[in-house]
């Protein structure tokens, strides 16, 4: 199973696809071809099977016309126009080959080579160099100028960036890197310095790459046709011999990649041009940070121990599974059927998630299943299901390219969803307007060629007040789309909402003292969003991770419905999902109250369908959510937990409570790549497999199901789905699948929105956006087109209920938490890569005035204390945060960011309120008590691992 391509098979048609309406017919070397109007001659020729020599042109970038290799002759036109920059016209007769063209191209190539090192045999891109290819293609046989002339051969190599080198001596000034940085990535880190022959590519103000604005997205490296910009992995290992298309395992963008291999060694990850989510672009994580997959810290043998105070013992899979099964069964017989449960992972495949929830429901016989999406996007599920009828984003990513106003709420796409962030920036550079609602000045607020029209810099915790004020302006100024509301929404519910929102308590003027946002700015933003043809909303965890997260999601949906911004390209309500498979893990029935496809357990017909297929009786009542499990564990009622690929001891709020809960359990089974923080509290460790080691699918933020393909054998011998099935079997409910495709077949059989999905269809289409069924055989890019999934759209009233977590004399600052570009979630993966060079520790951002009154200096240790706990970080004094607000990330376990966050959570879903914690900050000189305890515990558990009793080595047969 899986598509295998030869390396180099990714054809480059030279210039981007043009979606022209009418077709133009021309002849290329006598062969007729019809292409859309606006297509370049180069692309038309390539489609006709003729590859015109080129160096500065690539399908990923706009044509540039600088290399002059692609010159052609056109009947009736003078000269030798460049085929990349010349558009086709009706009846045009193009000659791509003639003696004069051959001579011209050879002469141009001769000029290139007169200033290029002749070290092809020892060059890292030998075999993958367009300059080399073109020299061959044009038949260059001599360089009459000699090699003694002026040249750049003595330029030094910049090796400062972690993942690639820049060798200016090999640069041919095609500008592809500069253009990739501008057009694809939107960072504008590269430029050309000087002019003429002295032109040179430089980063920022002629800085070393690691000191420049470069974000290591790798677009320039991919674009480079020579060895000038080369991956260090290629320099070290040489060229790959094959490539497999797969899907990135980092964020919810779900970029498609070609995993380029030598044997079972991953040499390079290259963004796939045919990728429907990323169109050939990538970020530093997916492109380069894959070293963790084969890191020495990987644990590849199952381990067990009696108590968490014991040394680990390596055992066989059989022993580990039987140990785990008997412990869980013993707990059930002592404490009852519902005393155990399990957690699915948003990092695992859909198939793995499905199998885990099936295992819990069928083998454990209860609904104590939850997913890490609980702590990120559960309010999205609740809010969008309530208002629109489906727990998912409404659009494709590409839709943003037709938005006229983009509203970004509580999201930092250039850091957390970089590839989509770049697409959004491209649209903004084309002139779309931008509203940013965020307590911090994120990159989008003000970066090269992008500036927010309105930045509503609200006080943390006042989202709902802001969204209500926006709704109030729309209603009171008559900016609503009456026809849309009339036709598409429940009119009674709308009327209730309208009366609610029109109340004076929701006016921007009344709410200004609450939100801290000037009323005039709110009014301007509301007009901006409501008065353009297409207004699109994108939001992230800054919306959901609040005590009113679900209210806010509904408020967003209300705003979109009231302005008619749903059901077509360029509009919509779009959650930006944190992890690679948040959408999928939710789709797969990971919640304690829902079966796959968001169907409530109480629905008899659905339940019966599953009972028949699985041959078991299902519990009809909801089980525990993650926080409920912890509370019950502390109370001694919940004793056993199976955790697949989640590190709640680091990622979940109120760490000390989580630690107490984990310590109180009798059987904690952790399945992971590494001995993570949670595993330090485990009794059974089942080694996991990386995304490179298994087949499956991930579903991204646009409901896109994309294939994950195995490129190497699981290091531990089994993929997660196989282990889960074996554990289920050991617990008395046999599960067996030969291949994940069979699991997908079962998902399709049992889930109406997935009924058309199969691996065959995925291979054919590349990816599929659900719903995919008899109504939409190739999937559904856009939702709610003619009617909402729930029929009529539902306006839910959204009263603003302030959080209990308020600043006071004792805790005068509000802490909010977030992400940075180079690290991912708890950092388990990215901390085990060179990304550490970008972000080696979590820091506390604090406003200069808050720092000054506390005597906190930049870079000094600062204590942060909340009612939940206390930790110590270094201070980063910055105006990115407003006065009264501090900010940090949680990528490093020893930072203890979640020691400080509280058990407050969303009223509807219990999604934790990571974004608002009242704290005090003060200069300190020592780590906090928790940190000292952490390091002691860490050292102790490290010893338990280091001293683990090794299994006898398996002798390999010769």
């Amino acid at each position, binding site marked *: 199973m899986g598509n295998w391509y030869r390396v180099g098979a990714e054809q480059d048609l030279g210039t981007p696809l043009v979606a022209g309406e009418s077709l133009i017919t021309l002849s290329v070397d006598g062969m007729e071809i019809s292409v859309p109007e606006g297509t370049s001659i180069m692309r038309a020729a390539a489609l006709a099977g003729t590859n015109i020599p080129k160096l500065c042109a690539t399908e990923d970038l706009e044509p540039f016309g600088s290399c002059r290799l692609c010159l052609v002759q056109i009947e009736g036109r003078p000269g030798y126009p460049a085929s990349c920059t010349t558009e086709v016209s009706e009846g045009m007769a193009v000659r791509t080959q003639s003696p004069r063209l051959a001579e011209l191209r050879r002469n141009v190539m001769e000029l290139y080579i007169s200033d290029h090192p002749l070290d092809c045999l020892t060059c890292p891109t030998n075999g993958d160099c367009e300059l080399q290819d073109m020299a061959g293609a044009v038949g260059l046989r001599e360089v009459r100028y000699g090699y003694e002339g002026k040249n750049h051969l003595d330029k030094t190599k910049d090796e400062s960036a972690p993942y690639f080198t820049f060798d200016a001596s090999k640069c041919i000034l095609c500008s592809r890197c500069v253009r990739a940085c501008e057009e694809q990535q939107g960072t504008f880190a590269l430029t050309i310095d000087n002019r003429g022959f002295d032109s040179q590519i430089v980063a920022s103000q002629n800085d070393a790459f690691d000191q420049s604005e470069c974000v290591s997205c790798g677009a320039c490296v991919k674009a480079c046709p020579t060895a000038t910009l080369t991956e260090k992995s290629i320099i070290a290992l040489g060229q790959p011999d094959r490539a497999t298309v797969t899907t990135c395992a980092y964020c919810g963008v779900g970029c498609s990649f070609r995993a380029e291999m030598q044997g079972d060694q991953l040499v390079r990850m290259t963004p796939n041009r045919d990728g429907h989510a990323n169109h050939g672009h990538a970020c530093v994580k997916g492109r380069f940070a894959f070293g963790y997959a084969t890191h020495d810290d990987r644990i590849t043998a199952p381990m067990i121990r009696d108590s968490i105070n014991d040394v680990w013992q390596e055992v066989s899979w059989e022993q580990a599974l039987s140990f785990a099964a008997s412990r869980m069964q013993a707990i059930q017989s002592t404490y009852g059927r519902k005393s155990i449960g399990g957690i699915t992972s948003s990092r695992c495949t859909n198939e793995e998630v499905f199998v885990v929830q099936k295992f819990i429901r069928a083998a454990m016989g209860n609904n104590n299943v939850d997913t890490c999406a609980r702590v990120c996007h559960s309010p999205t599920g609740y809010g969008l299901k309530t208002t629109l009828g489906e727990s998912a984003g409404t659009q494709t990513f590409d839709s943003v390219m037709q938005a006229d106003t983009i509203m970004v709420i509580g999201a930092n796409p250039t850091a957390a969803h970089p590839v989509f962030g770049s697409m959004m920036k491209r649209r903004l550079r084309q002139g779309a307007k931008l509203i940013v609602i965020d307590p911090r000045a994120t990159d989008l607020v003000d970066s090269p060629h992008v500036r927010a029209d309105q930045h509503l810099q609200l006080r943390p915790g006042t989202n709902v007040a802001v969204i209500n004020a926006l709704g109030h302006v729309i209603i009171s100024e008559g900016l609503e789309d009456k026809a849309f509301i009339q036709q598409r929404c429940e009119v009674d519910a709308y009327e209730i909402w309208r009366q609610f929102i029109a109340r004076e308590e929701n006016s921007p003027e009344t709410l200004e003292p609450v939100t801290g946002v000037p009323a005039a700015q709110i009014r301007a933003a509301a007009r901006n969003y409501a008065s353009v043809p297409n207004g699109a909303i994108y939001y992230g965890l800054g919306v959901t991770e609040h005590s009113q997260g679900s209210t806010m999601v509904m408020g967003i949906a209300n705003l979109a419905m009231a302005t008619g911004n749903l059901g077509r390209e360029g509009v919509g309500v779009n959650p930006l999902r944190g992890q690679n498979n948040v959408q999928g893990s939710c789709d797969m029935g990971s919640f304690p*109250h829902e079966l796959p496809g968001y169907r*409530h357990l109480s629905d008899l017909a659905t339940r019966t369908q599953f009972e028949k297929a699985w041959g078991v009786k299902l519990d009809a*009542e*909801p*089980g525990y959510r993650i926080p409920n499990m912890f509370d019950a564990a502390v109370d001694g*009622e919940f004793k056993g937990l199976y955790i697949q690929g989640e590190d709640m001891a680091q990622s979940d709020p109120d760490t000390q409570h989580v630690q107490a809960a984990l310590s109180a359990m009798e059987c904690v089974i952790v399945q992971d790549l590494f001995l993570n923080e949670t595993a330090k509290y485990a009794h059974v460790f089942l080694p996991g497999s990386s995304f490179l080691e298994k087949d499956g699918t991930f579903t991204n933020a646009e409901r896109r199901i994309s294939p994950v393909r195995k490129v190497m054998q699981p290091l531990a011998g089994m993929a997660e789905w196989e282990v889960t099935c074996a554990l289920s079997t050991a617990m008395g409910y046999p599960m067996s699948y030969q291949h994940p495709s069979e699991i997908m077949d079962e998902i399709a059989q049992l889930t109406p929105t997935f009924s058309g999905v199969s691996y065959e269809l995925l291979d054919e289409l590349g990816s599929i956006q659900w719903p995919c069924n008899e109504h939409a055989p190739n999937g559904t890019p856009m939702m709610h087109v003619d009617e909402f999934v729930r029929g009529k759209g539902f306006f839910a009233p959204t009263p603003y209920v302030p959080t209990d977590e308020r600043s006071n004399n004792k805790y005068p600052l509000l802490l909010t938490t977030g992400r940075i570009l180079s690290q991912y979630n708890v950092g388990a993966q990215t901390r085990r890569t060179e990304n550490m060079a970008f972000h080696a520790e979590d820091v506390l951002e604090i406003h200069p005035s808050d720092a000054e009154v506390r005597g906190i200096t930049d870079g000094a240790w600062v204590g942060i204390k909340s009612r939940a706990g206390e930790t110590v970080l270094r201070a980063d004094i910055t105006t990115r945060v407003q006065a009264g607000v501090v900010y940090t990330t949680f990528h490093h376990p020893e930072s203890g960011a979640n020691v400080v966050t509280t058990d407050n959570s969303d*009223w*509807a879903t219990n999604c934790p309120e990571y974004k608002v914690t009242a704290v005090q900050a003060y200069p300190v000189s020592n780590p906090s008590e928790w940190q000292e305890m952490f390091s002691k515990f860490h050292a102790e558990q490290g010893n338990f691992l280091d001293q683990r009793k090794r299994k006898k080595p398996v002798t390999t047969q010769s």
Partner: protein
Amino acid sequence: MTVQTDKLLRMAEQITANMAYTDDTEVVAEKIADHLYRFWDPRMLASLKAYNKEQAESLSPALAAAVQRLERAPYS
């Protein structure tokens, strides 16, 4: 009071506050009851019901009304 009950009460009151966009206690109580029934583990509901039997007066009126509804059909 156990960790659970303490938190359950806080969560239930939080739900109540967020449902209270109207003064009509009946409407609000119905919404609360429906929410609790759909999303809470029966053990959590049992704790809440038990608490309500003993100290209904310490719950907000809409919540108390909602918990009472949970004793009846269609919830029970």
